[in-house]
């Protein structure tokens, strides 16, 4: 009881809800969900998505909150309390969260870089820079696009492959330092400071999204994108990848398995009604995804229409110049008609145009589905530079990205700090502030590795392999532990103790039956996919061609991937083994002592 009294608490339940919302609503809602929507049949994707939310997302979210609130400890302590042999689950969560902390803040560093560069009269990614003798533009930029050049060359100064290392990019390092300082500022006083910060980080992104929605739908051509997104292609539902991606998206979007939810809930009052909160947060998270994809698709529509019309304009000029027609004979509307006409009337001259005549296709422009950092930093910046008053929109957009990223970072860091501060030997020797500072400093120093010239390739590696597989394994073990090892009956009693009413059958069926089955299916799918995928590959930026090429990872990088996967997963069996040995030594030690007193 004394320990409960000393534990910090949220000022009110609203802070807890906002903290969960701020953590769950992150960059994935903005850059992964719209991509999945586009890949898997537009509006039709909502069916598997919402189904997986109900079958998998909400019950697991509920379970993690229940554990945190009941045990009132971070993930390591909580799982050790549930079953001493499975304390490794908590440790695995901490290791995975640590990996996430290392690379996730680099995204915030990039957002800062872009934000600071938005305060210029011409956005630096709007035009190619001029080359040294002022005759034209820099070659690499000419071959790629200005936005790609700005991202790959000026932001990252990326090397040709993961093997080519380089120095640290000073600008990136400074931005990363700033990002970590802000994280420290937000967590320095524990939940007291975090609780106040989440009021802002959880709500302001919505304000920006609404502003962007209004701006987006009023842009010329945005309706093409929204129509494209919502036209359901029902045949995609027959594709099993659609269902798997829906399940994975729900799973990772809610942030299950990292230990953040357990950490947040551990600061709750014992009788907090987390059942209602779990449902509310999950619903908010999914609605935000759908809302964000409307915004993204209206921007896509604008960008695609802009590019299509630019293409038509270029073709029009080409025709005018080659055939020396008066300027107003060809307009954007009848370009296609004139192409056919001129081909018929002047075939030899038409063929001399050769490869210079582009085919302009709106569908093809809309079809270019991009996700991840490519969407956020390349596609979106390209759309923004064409908007009127682009600096304002750029600033707003990157502030939104920062808030989404920072909100998620808070959850990640708290997931690492809470279990560490619960450990007796740490809390005895240092205060929370020192511990927080040390963790931030440690992550900053290691994170500097991602600001080197090959840093982006390591970033992609961490992003693809650092958390995906281990999380599935962790959550699977979590669910099996709670339902079968700890026992669903005991869990039911704990929940009744906290909430005052029993678990209704929805939770019981989902937690004990449906969710484990779905998780096992996902797990098997991942393993099969990984084995079938052959050598893991990555996209390397080739400066001569001005585009990314698929390259295989070198052997040491592949070994590192294996290490990433194994290091978190192995915690579980290794801790179980360690606890078993310790218990056996203790038991045999007791036996020896009893023997010695008898003989004495």
């Amino acid at each position, binding site marked *: 009881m004394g320990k409960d009294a*000393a534990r910090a608490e949220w000022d009110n339940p609203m802070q807890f809800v906002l903290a969960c919302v701020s953590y769950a609503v992150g960059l994935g809602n903005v850059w992964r969900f719209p991509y999945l929507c586009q890949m898997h049949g537009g509006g039709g994707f909502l069916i598997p998505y919402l189904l997986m939310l109900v079958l998998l997302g909400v019950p697991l979210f509920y379970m993690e909150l229940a554990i945190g609130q009941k045990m009132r400890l971070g993930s390591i302590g909580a799982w050790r309390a549930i079953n001493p042999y499975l304390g490794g689950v908590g440790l695995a969560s901490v290791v995975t969260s640590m990996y996430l902390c290392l690379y996730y803040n680099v995204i915030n560093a990039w957002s800062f870089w872009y*934000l*600071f560069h938005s305060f210029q009269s011409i956005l630096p990614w709007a035009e190619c820079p001029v080359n040294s003798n*002022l*005759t034209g533009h820099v070659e690499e930029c000419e071959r790629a696009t200005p936005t790609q050049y700005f991202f790959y060359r000026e932001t990252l100064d990326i090397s040709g492959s993961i093997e080519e290392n380089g120095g640290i990019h000073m600008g990136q390092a400074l931005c990363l330092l700033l990002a970590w*300082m802000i994280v420290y500022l937000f967590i320095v006083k524990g939940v007291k400071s975090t609780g106040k910060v989440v009021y802002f980080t959880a709500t302001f992104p919505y304000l920006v999204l609404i502003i962007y929605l209004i701006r987006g739908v009023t842009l010329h051509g945005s309706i093409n994108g929204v129509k494209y997104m919502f036209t359901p292609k029902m045949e995609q539902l027959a594709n099993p990848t659609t269902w798997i991606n829906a399940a994975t998206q729900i799973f990772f979007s809610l942030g299950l398995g990292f230990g953040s939810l357990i950490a947040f809930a551990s600061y709750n009052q*014992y009788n907090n009604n987390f059942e209602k909160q779990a449902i509310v947060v999950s619903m908010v998270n999914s609605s935000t995804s759908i809302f964000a994809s409307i915004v993204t698709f209206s921007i896509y529509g604008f960008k695609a229409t802009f590019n299509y019309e630019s293409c038509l304009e270029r073709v029009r000029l080409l025709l005018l110049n080659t055939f*020396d027609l008066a*300027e107003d004979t060809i307009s954007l509307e009848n370009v296609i008609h004139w192409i056919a006409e001129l081909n018929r009337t002047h075939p030899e001259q038409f063929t001399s145009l050769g490869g210079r005549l582009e085919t302009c296709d709106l569908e093809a422009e809309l079809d270019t589905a991009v996700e991840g950092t490519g969407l956020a930093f390349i596609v979106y910046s390209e759309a923004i530079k064409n908007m009127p008053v682009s600096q304002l929109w750029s600033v707003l957009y990157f502030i939104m990205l920062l808030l989404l990223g920072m909100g998620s970072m808070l959850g990640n860091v708290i997931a690492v700090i809470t279990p560490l501060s619960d450990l007796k030997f740490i809390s005895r020797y240092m205060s929370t502030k020192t511990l927080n500072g040390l963790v931030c400093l440690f992550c900053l120093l290691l994170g500097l590795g991602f600001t080197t010239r090959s840093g982006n390739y390591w970033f992609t590696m961490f992003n693809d392999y650092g958390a995906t597989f281990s999380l599935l394994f962790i959550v699977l073990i979590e669910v099996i532990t709670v339902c079968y090892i700890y026992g669903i009956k005991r869990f039911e009693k704990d929940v009744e103790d906290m909430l005052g009413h029993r678990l209704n059958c929805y939770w019981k069926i989902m937690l004990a039956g449906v969710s484990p089955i779905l998780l096992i299916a996902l797990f098997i799918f991942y393993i099969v996919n990984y084995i079938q995928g052959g050598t893991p590959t990555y996209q390397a930026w080739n400066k001569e061609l001005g585009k990314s090429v698929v390259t295989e990872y070198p052997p040491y990088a592949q070994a590192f991937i294996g290490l990433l996967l194994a290091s978190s997963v192995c915690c579980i069996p290794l801790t179980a083994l360690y606890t078993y040995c310790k218990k056996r030594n203790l038991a045999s030690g007791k036996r020896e002592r009893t023997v010695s007193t008898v003989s004495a």
Partner: protein
Amino acid sequence: MVSKTLNAPNGYKVRISLKTALGEDAYEWNQSEMFFFQATMAFAMRRHFQMETYNVDNIILCVQTSRVSFWFVVTSPDNTTMLIPKADVEKAVRMSRHRINNAFLLSDRTLEFLGIYPTLAAPVNPDTPPWLIVFGVVIGAVCVGIIALLISSLLQKRRKEKGMTEDGQDEEDMQVKGVENGINLDGTYNRGFTDDDRFTKL
């Protein structure tokens, strides 16, 4: 309608896009405008060679199309059968490009001399990149925030240690209230039953 590709080693093709540049305010391209062009080119030649002898007749125009494009060659003022070499014409045009553009209310893009590429504007390199300035402001604010929070919590701790001797009781009561055997208490805690009574009243 179709232009033949001229074999004019010393001539340049000029292309003018009036509608693109001026839209509604586009003026009509007629013979007077062509005369103006000849005059402008003569001016450019005079300016470059610093010879006052160039005249409108030295600029010969041909193959005019409705695109508004035409070829021109420049003859020497001393000998009208001799053509000024391409390189010299290019230098003259480059020198006065800005004046020529402005004369016609056009730009490098809408008044094109095919083969003479416009020199791009030199990049403006400020002493401190603007992003560093914004960065400096933000990181300064964050530093101030962190230091303020650390100092305020230090002061609070010192104040608490001073105040601990007086209101130690209140704190313990507050924390124990409401959590007793896991059942939520709604009433106020009766201090009369506190376990440790630090100050016995005499």
